Each structure stands twice: as structure tokens, then as C-alpha cells.
């Protein structure tokens, strides 16, 4: 297609939107609503995943050894664990370190009580490995593996929390996916109606074009441009709104619900929008293209 024809299609596409402004606005509004909701779901999902990731790091697996185990054997167990792909970090905590930490956590203000154990370590057989995995979902499999190693007495893990986080994340993904697909289907239907209206308004012009010898794509391209522009506008408006809302929400939650900041971890706004902007624009322009393509294929035969 020649540059002059591309410019012509753009000009006509914009004219179509202007001529058909009520329907165009309805389509833009629907796409904007879809993409706004998409953005909200994306915020929740992205931040939840981020929170899960951080929490995952604190959901460790503690591995205790048989009594009378040698240091060499402990080291061998450590080496076997390290070879597993899902292991992010492995830390050895000796019995003395474990007792020191326990004393600090439990009897910090009771020096007398601590003194009674001065020469004694009640946690003598409590040396352990603390292992953090790169994904909480891999915990059950890992625990099963560790339990099978010779010399391992006990494995402590919080697989219920791990599984819970992972399941909730998945459910949220499914629900938001279903809602977004439904909304996008409505948006495609509305674009279809808008373009059909545009075609009926320009029926005379289209019939003349065909008789003069315009090719299929020349007749169709202004309508495709129209659909894509509607999609583009439907994407830009919610992105602006979402940017403002996201910034405000983080600030508001940070100020008013500071207690939540220990539980929730928010992604930086630039980090979120680095993905959300191209994704929303692609979805907006994409459904505009698909919606208009379906319509012109149905209504414009030369």
C-alpha cells in the first residue's frame, strides 16, 4: 500500500469516528472499562505475586539430624540438598547458634533463667539446615526428598501456608482471566456494531469506490484503521487513570494502613507500568483490529 493511501485511510478512519461519534464513544468506553478492570486485576495479581515471592523467601524448611551424627555426614547431607534446582539458599545452624537465638527470642528479659542453663545446652541435638526454595509450590516435593535422606531425623515446614499462597494466586489468575475474556468479547461486539454503522452511513461512497475500481483492501482499510484507533483510545484513557490511581493507592495505604505494610509488598509504579502499558495497548489495538476485521469481512465484498 502506498504512503498516500495509508494517509488517506487514516484520514477517513478519523472521519468515520467523528461522524459516528456516539457509537465510537460507546466502543471506546467499553474497551476503556475492560482495560481499566484489566489494569486493576493486573495490579492485584502482580503485587500479590510479588508479595508471595517475598513471603516464599521467609517460608523456610528446617532439617534436623539423627543423634550422634558426625559433622562429615551433615556436610554430605548439605551437599545433596544443594544439588537440587529449587534450592535458593541453604544455611547451617549449629546447636549453639540455635540455643543462642532461642535464648534471645524467648528469655531476653530473664537473665536469671538464662544463668541456670549457663553450662548446659538443652538444644544439643538441634543442629539444622534451614533451606529456602525459589518457589513455595515446590516445597512438598522437596520435603519428600529430604525425608528420604539417611541421617535426617525430622523436617519442619509450613506446607499449608505454602500451598495456600500458591492456590490463591492461581484462583485469582483464573477469575480475572475469565472476567477479562468476557469483557473483551463485549468490546469486540460493540466495535462490530460501530463499524457496521459506519459502513451503512458510507454505503453510497463504498458503492462508488467499488465501481471505480477500488481494491478490497483500499475499501476496507479506513474501517480497520477506525477499529484500531478506537482500541488505541480505549487503552490510553484507562492507562492514565490507572497510573494516577496506583500512585495514590500506594500512598494512601502506606499512610492510613501502615500495619499492612508488613504483610503487603507493593511493586514500584514504573515496574508495573513497564509491562502494563505495552500489554494494554496491544490488547486495545488488537481487539480493535479483530472487531473491525470481522465486520468488514462480513459486509464489504467487492
Amino acid at each position: 500500500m502506498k504512503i498516500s493511501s495509508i494517509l488517506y485511510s487514516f484520514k477517513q478512519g478519523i472521519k468515520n469516528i467523528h461522524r459516528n461519534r456516539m457509537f465510537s464513544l460507546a466502543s471506546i468506553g467499553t474497551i476503556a472499562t475492560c482495560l481499566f478492570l484489566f489494569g486493576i486485576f493486573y495490579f492485584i495479581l502482580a503485587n500479590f505475586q510479588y508479595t508471595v515471592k517475598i513471603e516464599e523467601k521467609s517460608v523456610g524448611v528446617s532439617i534436623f539430624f539423627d543423634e550422634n551424627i558426625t559433622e562429615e555426614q551433615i556436610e554430605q547431607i548439605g551437599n545433596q540438598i544443594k544439588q537440587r534446582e529449587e534450592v535458593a539458599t541453604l544455611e547451617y545452624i549449629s546447636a549453639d547458634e540455635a540455643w543462642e537465638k532461642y535464648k534471645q527470642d524467648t528469655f531476653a528479659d530473664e537473665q536469671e533463667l538464662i544463668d541456670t542453663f549457663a553450662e548446659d545446652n538443652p538444644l544439643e541435638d538441634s543442629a539444622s539446615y534451614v533451606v529456602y526454595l525459589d518457589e513455595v509450590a515446590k516445597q512438598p516435593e522437596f520435603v519428600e526428598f529430604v525425608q528420604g535422606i539417611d541421617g535426617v531425623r525430622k523436617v519442619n515446614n509450613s506446607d499449608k501456608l505454602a500451598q495456600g499462597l500458591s492456590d490463591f494466586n492461581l484462583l485469582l489468575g483464573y477469575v480475572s482471566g475469565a472476567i477479562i475474556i468476557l469483557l473483551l468479547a463485549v468490546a469486540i461486539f460493540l466495535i462490530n456494531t460501530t463499524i457496521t454503522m459506519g459502513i451503512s452511513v458510507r454505503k453510497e461512497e463504498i458503492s462508488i469506490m467499488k465501481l471505480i475500481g477500488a481494491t478490497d483492501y483500499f475499501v476496507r482499510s479506513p474501517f480497520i484503521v477506525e477499529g484500531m484507533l478506537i482500541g488505541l483510545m480505549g487503552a490510553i484513557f484507562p492507562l492514565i487513570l490507572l497510573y494516577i490511581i496506583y500512585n495514590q493507592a500506594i500512598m494512601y495505604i502506606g499512610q492510613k494502613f501502615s500495619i499492612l505494610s508488613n504483610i503487603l509488598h507493593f511493586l514500584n509504579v514504573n515496574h508495573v507500568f513497564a509491562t502494563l502499558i505495552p500489554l494494554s495497548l496491544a490488547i486495545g489495538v488488537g481487539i480493535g483490529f479483530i472487531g473491525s476485521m470481522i465486520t468488514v469481512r462480513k459486509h464489504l465484498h467487492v
Partner: protein
Amino acid sequence: MKNEVDELLKESIEPPIIVLENVSKSYQKDVDAVKDVSIKIRKGEFVFIVGSSGSGKSTLIKMLLKEIEPTSGKIFVNGRDITRLRRRLVPKFRRNLGIVFQDFRLLKDRNVFENVAFAQRVIEKPSRTIQRNVPAMLSLVGLSDKLNAFPRELSGGEQQRVALARALVNNPLILLADEPTGNLDPKNSWDIMSLLDEVNKKGTTVVVVTHNVEIVDAMQKRVITMNKGILVSDEQKGGYSNEN
């Protein structure tokens, strides 16, 4: 005998540009809009197709434009069987034809220049060519001073001249005019017919479907008369038959 020899001689010099071979078209079963029509029109000819309403004239034009297909028979335009033309080649084929309608069919939201330029834009002529060709064509139809006027600001005759400029700007081999004077007063009708005659003298084949007895009788061109879908007469330098 002499006529037949003349005809063969003409054909060898100027081959037919439009050939209809036993063409029939029925929209409903047992009702023929056009029945077994055979016509040959040579390059550079000026032909009137006359007949009353429902005689099949418009169906003939629509078949030539490949808007509709004949039920049977063959149509050749410039040596090509258009009944077997692939759909994707139809736009290119139509660029050989210029078309003028009774109701002008101008784009109301565009001025005179844009209406004529539209014909060049749809076949993707470069802007520079459009800027050169459109004023030249409007000058030919006598509308150089109306470039920026909108159709609603023009008389019927002027609107038809714009439509004619739009039909001619792509240099068609054949100009098809469907009742071009149907909405015009006698003076404007004659102006349009003079323009068509001028275009024909420059080499374009002109086919005019009309009801206008006065013009057909006065111009003394080839006249094909249709009645109820049947070709009833085909006369060189003919007049409007009394049967109509």
C-alpha cells in the same frame, strides 16, 4: 452483401471492445430481464441503448460493470471474457470503465475537486498526479471556477459535469452513461451530450442508456433498441424507434 463486407472490414480495422454473446439474465425463474442478446461494439463507437422501463437496459449496464452475472452467455470486454474473471481481478477490470449515473452520485461532504480526486485516490494515484489531472479534467468539463464548491451549491447540469469529470479522469477505455440526462433540463442535457460526443471523438468508446428521444434522434448515432429484455433493433445512425 455490401453491408456485411463493410462490417467485416470495420472489424478488421477496429476490433470490438464489447462483445455480448447470447447473453441472458433472469432474476426470477421464467422471468428474463435480458434474453439471448448478442451485441458487438467497436472501439471508439458511440452507442445509444434505448427502451422503455423494464426493457433490460440497466441490467445490461450492470452486467458490463460486473455488478451482476449473466445467467447464460458470454461477455467480452477488451478481448477478455469477464464472466470468467476472478473476483480479485474485478477492481482492475473496472478501471477500464468510466460510469455516469442519472442521479450523479457525488459525495455530498466533499467539494468538486475532492469528488474528482476521489476517483484517482481509490486507484492509488500519487498525490502529485492527482493535483495535475483533476484541474485539467475540470477545465475540460468547464468547471475550473468551481473547484471548491460543494455539490449542494451546484446546478444539476454542473453536478453531472463533475460526475463526468470523475468518470473520465482515469482515462477509461469505455464510458458507460446510465440515463445521464434523466434529471436535467434540455439545455443542460445538450451540454452533457456535447461533452460525451467530444470525449468520443478523442477515442473513448461511449455507451449511453437513455429515454431522451430528442437527443437520440438528433445525434444520429448507432441505436440499440431493447424491449422486454429482447434486442429489437440495432441501427447505425438510427433514431428512437416509435415502438418505445
